[in-house]
């Protein structure tokens, strides 16, 4: 191990002499991590959606006595999507060409059915095949849910008016017909008058029976308000907006930023470092009994691990300070740093082994760095794609350390019970390190040709 230690110390000394390179290697992936975060956070925020109004909705609709401002409703949607009014044919065309993510179609007779309160009108949502379509479907469902809540309130209020009419009596109209309702209160009073005017025991019994019914009916109808609301909304959702973590300091973004930075730095550095041994013509000198090829590969893998540990801890410190200064809920899990350090070493070794393999294949250091960059960029981007959505991305990510590093960091820092996830990620990272390092060891013989 002396030879490995000496080569590692040499590489670190060489690295220390290139601060600009090191800074670029650290800052560039951090910038990419920030951009990825921004893309993930905002990319799907405002999809372009066609609005096809076949019914010619008026500016305002009055339903069950409640006035609904149509423009206001459209404004609510505009928070989540860019609604573009257009004809049905144009919407069809733009949906096919992908110019719009979805089309909301308001069919003919929509407003009339809504006002009639007899039949539920349909709002048609046509979705394209883009990745944002399913997200917009959820947003539209949420909008329809909110509209239904508003209408429900209006319908309940209207129904309660009828209940109040039944209890208190008065004039009313239903489906355009006006009529007088006596009401239970008045019915009770009339029954009291009838009771005073008769001595017929049979009539008095009937009056008592009717009076009991009126009393029970009034009692029951007085409970209608709460019962109606409860049956209309068996479960109510209450949303509490807490201070919480900003997305910038969120667990996933921290883990992704760490893994992304380390993947670029470690892969590029180790690829360049192993190829530089050949560029400097020293491999022949080393293998003359001074350093074995296995030791040469091991030294570069360890270089990745050491750089990952140092850089990862600095980044974790920066995130932690930002979290504490920002007073973010939950704070930074400082007690988890030792576990994170283990993850950094494992991830750095895996990235390092992958970089060594690329460097061995590329042979020349400039080519190695270029190849490492070209290979790493798509691999980390694939690693950000949720495997549940695109299984192929998951399969590809499985054979590259990035996704496993993200899993390890996220669990190590933020999971209540991290051990299972950490264990799985550890096995993956160790396995990938051994596989890449073995392949690199076999390939490094090419340096002697």
């Amino acid at each position: 191990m002396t030879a490995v230690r000496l080569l590692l110390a040499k590489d670190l000394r060489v690295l220390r002499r290139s601060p600009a390179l090191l800074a670029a290697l650290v800052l560039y992936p951090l910038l990419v991590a920030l951009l990825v975060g921004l893309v993930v956070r905002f990319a799907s925020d405002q999809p372009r959606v066609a609005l096809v109004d076949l019914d010619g909705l008026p500016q305002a609709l009055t339903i069950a006595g409640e006035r609904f401002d149509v423009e206001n409703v459209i404004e609510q949607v505009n928070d989540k999507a860019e609604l573009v009014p257009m004809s049905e044919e144009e919407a069809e065309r733009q949906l096919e060409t992908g110019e719009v993510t979805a089309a909301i179609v308001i069919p003919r007779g929509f407003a009339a059915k809504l006002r009639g309160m007899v039949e539920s009108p349909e709002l048609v949502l046509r979705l394209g095949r883009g990745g944002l379509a399913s997200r917009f479907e959820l947003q539209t469902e949420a909008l329809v849910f909110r509209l239904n809540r508003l209408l429900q309130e209006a319908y309940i209020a209207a129904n309660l008016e009828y209940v109040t009419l039944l209890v208190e009596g008065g004039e009313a109209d239903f489906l355009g017909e006006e009529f007088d309702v006596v009401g239970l209160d008045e019915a009770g009073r009339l029954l009291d008058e009838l009771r005073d005017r008769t001595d017929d025991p049979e009539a008095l019994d009937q009056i008592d029976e009717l009076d009991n019914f009126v009393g029970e009916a009034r009692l029951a109808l007085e409970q209608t308000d709460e019962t109606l609301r409860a049956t209309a909304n068996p479960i109510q959702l209450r949303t509490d907006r807490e201070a919480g973590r900003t997305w910038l300091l969120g667990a996933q973004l921290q883990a992704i930023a760490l893994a992304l930075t380390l993947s670029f730095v470690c892969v590029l550095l180790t690829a360049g470092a192993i190829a530089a041994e050949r560029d400097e013509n020293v491999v022949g000198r080393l293998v003359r009994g001074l350093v074995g090829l296995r030791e040469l590969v091991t030294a570069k893998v360890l270089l990745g691990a050491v750089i990952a540990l140092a850089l990862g801890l600095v980044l974790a410190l920066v995130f932690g300070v930002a979290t504490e200064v920002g007073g973010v809920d939950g704070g930074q899990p400082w007690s988890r740093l030792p576990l994170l350090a283990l993850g950094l070493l494992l991830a750095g070794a895996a990235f390092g082994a992958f970089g060594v393999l690329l460097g061995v294949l590329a042979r020349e250091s400039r080519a190695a760095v270029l190849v490492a960059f070209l290979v790493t960029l798509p691999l980390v981007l694939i690693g950000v794609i949720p495997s549940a959505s695109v299984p192929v991305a998951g399969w590809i990510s499985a054979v590259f350390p990035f996704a496993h590093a993200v899993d390890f960091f996220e669990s190590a820092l933020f999971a209540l019970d991290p051990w299972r996830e950490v264990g799985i990620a550890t096995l993956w990272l160790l396995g990938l390190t051994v596989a890449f390092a073995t392949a690199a060891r076999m390939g490094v013989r090419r340096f002697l040709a």
Partner: protein
Amino acid sequence: MPDVTALLSGRGIARSFGRHAALEPTDLDVRGGEVLGLVGPNGAGKSTLVSILAGALSPDSGTVVHADPAPRVGWVPQRPAQYGRLTPRENLELFARLEGVSEPEAVAGRLVELVELPDDGRLTAELSLGNQQRLNLAVALLADPDVLLLDEPTSSLDPRQRRRFWELARAVRERGGAVVFVTQNLEELERFADRVVVLLDGRLVFDGSAEEYARSPEADVFA
């Protein structure tokens, strides 16, 4: 039969790169107390032979046999083999440690003075080619070698540095060691070689004393 006086012997050593046979099966003994000149046109297999003798390249077939006790072998490759982002002294200290030399700092300091290397903190990559070649030689001298294998060692040196270089090489021979040097320089060959080996298209075509070589048809071919 191996020469019992040989410090280093190649037996049937051969090497190909892809389909190109760089060195046909070759026997060569390197004896103590001699300076062996290795000549031949470009691509004749000289560097391949020296690299295999040095242990920097594995032969496809054949073996390299060392005397008992095994001699210490120093190798100066044609292209300098050292780290450009380290200073000459750091290079020497690193390779001294890898060689297992005791007191690596002291040995490195002595060699910096011996081969007159700049010691002003400049990185090796910033040095002239001549200075880089001198460092190349200094690294080969770290282990106090019994056999010095030199691949066109003086091609980048000025006359004064060449003289200094040959003084160092002769010192190895004078204490019973061997020097093998690849050269394209006939003057150096005539002046310093005790024995000459000629390679042509990967085959050894002449192995004899410098005098024999001077009278041989191979000398005319090479000239």
